[in-house]
């Protein structure tokens, strides 16, 4: 059998939250990918919305570039949002 393309699945758990990556699956096209995502990833009442995208369309940063991409931010603690207390009533940010 010709292998079906791989799709990355994003589910939004409740209104107001963002879609989160939950995993991947195989499907021949986008509509079937949505159906399969519904059956594989939302059967325990996880979702209110599904996004799917072809895994091959994701452009990822290269692990070799970790140093130049991320190290410079480590020493700039004044940018890190760790000095603020988030009030309870704000909830998730």
């Amino acid at each position: 059998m010709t292998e079906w393309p791989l799709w990355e699945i994003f589910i939004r758990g409740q209104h107001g939250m963002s879609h989160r990556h939950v995993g991947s699956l195989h499907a021949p096209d986008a509509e079937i990918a949505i159906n399969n995502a519904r059956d594989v990833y939302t059967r325990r009442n996880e979702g209110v919305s599904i996004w799917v995208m072809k895994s091959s369309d994701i452009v990822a940063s290269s692990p070799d570039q970790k140093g130049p991409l991320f190290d410079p931010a480590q020493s700039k603690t004044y940018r890190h949002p760790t000095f603020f207390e988030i009030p309870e009533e704000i909830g998730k940010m």
Partner: protein
Amino acid sequence: MSAEKFEYLCRLGDSTLIIGQQLGKWCGHAPILEEDIAVANTALDLIGQATMWLDYAGKVEGKGRTADDLAYFRDSRAFRNVLLVEQPNGEFGATLMRQFLFDAWHLPLLEQLQSSTDPEISAIAEKAEKEARYHLRRSASLVKRLGLGTDDSHQRMQEALLALWPFTGELIEADDIDGIAQAEGYGADTVTIAEEACGNWSKTLLQAGLVVSEDVGMRSGGKTGLHSEGFGYILAEMQSLARAMPGAKW
């Protein structure tokens, strides 16, 4: 108790029970993981619906029989499912075709039953309708893709359609029980269901490039308890554990 209403509810319950049981046989055997999960989900939806219909059938009958009693301790002639659902699974494409033919009728049936004058029936139909709508969306999508896929997939779906089409007549033909149910208000409007089922069938089959033969003889009998030879094996598999160990629990 109303004998006709009991019959009517057994038809609803038995058709969903048997097609659910048949789909369950694919669990762990479907051609791809995603389809395996999907087919098992559908089977569970349908068995859940069967539980509700048969539970209510038992109450209407008034002899204290539960849904399990009806599912496991009736013999072949007492089952009222349509013949379509007891047709063999065959290959996966044939199962999908059987499912599509069923779903395309099941959805309008449940839509009509939502306006039943019996609040129990309309409540079950309302819950089941959402599941059936998804089942049809899924099976119709797959029938279209396989119908328009390769020459091989097209031919297999065409053969499955020709083999199963003679069993669609029974879904939309109304007999005395259907007539009484409709006249008394608790049953569904059979004319509307027939129109909508035919519409659903022809729309998807046209899109899938599949054709039915017009002059085929339709087969019926399941709704009155006359089942095909293979039905005994389906029941044997489904009922053997409950009969060997009555009252067994998880």
